[in-house]
């Protein structure tokens, strides 16, 4: 605060007429107010109304009914009551986490919310760990590290739309790379149907997203690794800590803020996943890859009724959920520091 205040010009020290900060702010405030703040607030307002875009005359206040409909909507919450987490997670429950993910993968309760959770649970842990390993390797590659960094970064500059289309061919049952590799390496003769298999479609999309985000997360870790003073690592080496041990006791704790950042960005991104499903599977087969944002998009624009009220409620419920997850993540990591 004070550092930023230093040298800032106060009104009495001289600006007048049009040559003032208010004028400098004007374009941004106007654009932002009209095209960002207004739509967001308007969506919140609409979420309390029965409102179909094509029938504006029938618009009327219904209170929380849209939000109640979310909880009762089977296409969002799946088979009711099957996987509602109860109480606080104990140590052994956390230890069983991989099993839970596996179970959710095989045995989804269905519904957009659980699909999105399933996607997030599969994606985030791997999106945190794999780029970290890659970053540590790239960091040690000496003169070639720039080359490896560049090559791995390429996918992230290409849009989700184009990536999804490319990967539809990767997963093509006959001509795709995935099955070609399976046939060549494992000697399997048929290969998998990937995107048209209700159990495989979601993991297939997760693999694609991991591949797409790998370079970006690697870069964040590389930035974090460069911030660690070399003296610290040297000192540890003198003390006899080498390899994995040094990494776990020195590097990893110092890298914690970056790990949190990567995890949080991955988590928020995963909860908002849309384009991949829209392009590759349209939420299918069945509803097995229907994500929350895809469902709200369909409710608003594809199912014909243009239910803007209900779709707004879904959007705001998702935003609230994301906010909650962010808050919990911050609390958990801060708690352990003390």
């Amino acid at each position, binding site marked *: 605060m004070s550092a930023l*205040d*230093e*040298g*800032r*010009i106060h009104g009495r020290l001289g*600006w007048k007429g049009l*040559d003032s*900060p*208010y004028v*400098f702010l004007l*374009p*941004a405030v106007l*654009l*932002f107010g009209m*095209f*960002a*703040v*207004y*739509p*967001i*607030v308007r*969506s*919140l307002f609409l979420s309390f109304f029965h409102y179909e*875009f094509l029938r504006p005359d029938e618009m009327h206040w219904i209170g929380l009914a849209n939000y109640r409909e979310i909880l009762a909507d089977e296409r969002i919450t799946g088979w009711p009551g099957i996987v509602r987490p109860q109480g606080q997670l104990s140590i052994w429950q956390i230890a069983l986490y991989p099993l839970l993910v596996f179970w959710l993968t095989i045995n989804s309760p269905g519904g957009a919310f659980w699909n999105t959770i399933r996607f997030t649970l599969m994606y985030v842990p791997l999106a945190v760990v794999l780029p970290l390993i890659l970053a540590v*390797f790239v960091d*040690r*590659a000496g003169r*070639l590290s720039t080359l*490896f960094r*560049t*090559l*791995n*970064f*390429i996918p992230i*500059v*290409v*849009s989700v*739309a*184009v990536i999804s*289309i*490319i990967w*539809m061919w990767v997963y093509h049952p006959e001509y795709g*790379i995935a099955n*070609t590799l399976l046939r060549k390496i494992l000697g399997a003769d048929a290969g998998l149907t990937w995107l048209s298999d209700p159990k495989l479609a979601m993991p297939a999309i997760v693999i694609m997203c991991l591949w797409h985000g*790998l370079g*970006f997360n690697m*870069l*964040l870790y590389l930035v974090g690794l460069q911030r660690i003073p070399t003296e610290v690592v040297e000192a540890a080496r003198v003390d006899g800590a080498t390899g994995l041990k040094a990494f776990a006791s020195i590097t990893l704790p110092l890298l914690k803020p970056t790990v949190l*950042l990567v995890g*949080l*960005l991955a988590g928020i991104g995963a909860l*908002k996943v*849309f384009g991949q499903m*829209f392009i590759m599977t349209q939420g299918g087969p069945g509803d097995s890859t229907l994500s929350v944002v895809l469902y709200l*998009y369909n409710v*608003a624009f594809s199912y014909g009724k243009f239910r*803007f009220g209900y779709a707004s409620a879904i*959007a705001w419920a998702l*935003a609230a959920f*994301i906010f909650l997850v962010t808050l919990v993540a911050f609390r958990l990591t801060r708690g352990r520091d003390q």
Partner: protein
Amino acid sequence: MTRDKLKRWSDRGLLYGALTLVSLASVLPFVWIILSSVKPHAELYSKTLTFLPQQYTLENYTKMFERMVGFGYYYRNSIIVSFGTVILTLFAGSLAAYALSRFRFKGDNAIFLLFLGTIMVPGEVGLIGQYELLSAYKLLNTLTGLTLSYTAFNLALTIFIMRGVFSSVPQEMLDAARVDGCSWWESFWQIMVPMGASGLAAAGTLVFLNAWNEFIFALTMNNWTDEARTLTVGIQLLQGQWQHWDYGVLFSSVMLSFLPVIVLFLLLQKTFMRGLTAGAVKG
């Protein structure tokens, strides 16, 4: 001694081997698309799959330009909307950042917090309100509407990045300009913009990528006519129309839609990476 050396060599070998494998996996799908786009129709659909083309041909590209009429529009629209967004966002955003970093006035913190606060709100929340708004002002399916919408959603991030950049410009330079009779407006163009050039470039590439790659807003707002579609929306439409007809043509269109961004990235690597990390550390 030699054993140590041997171990170090094998460690190095393992490291480079693993890195080469992962890096190949990162570029393989792109290479595969590029190679496939120059294969003749018969080879693409033959029983024995080939990686390297047995025969090179440009027929897919000529066919694409003949039959995929919309493709030219999509390309043009993406360029107009992306560059429009970058220019508008950098102008309005850096001017606001100048005001917020260099002046003290009533409500300055409140305004900054308002900008900062919306970074946390997912853009999808504004989707429906945005659609209504653009529809009311007849801006649906126009490049102006999409540009304004992208600008608004990239402003907060730009202001946040540029405020940090402008704060580190030495005060003496502004004072000297003031003594020479510069107005604040002139100081902005003559001091802040040149001093913050690399920050502007980083923010610019971030905004460009966001606009060029954006999907859900473009799909919602600009999806009625070919004249309004951007590349991301157009390419998935072409995919839907052509996947049962001709892979080769699709391969060539996909190849043309990712090539410019990748080339741009390879040319401006440092700026890209700086922009993208600056965008990530926002939270």
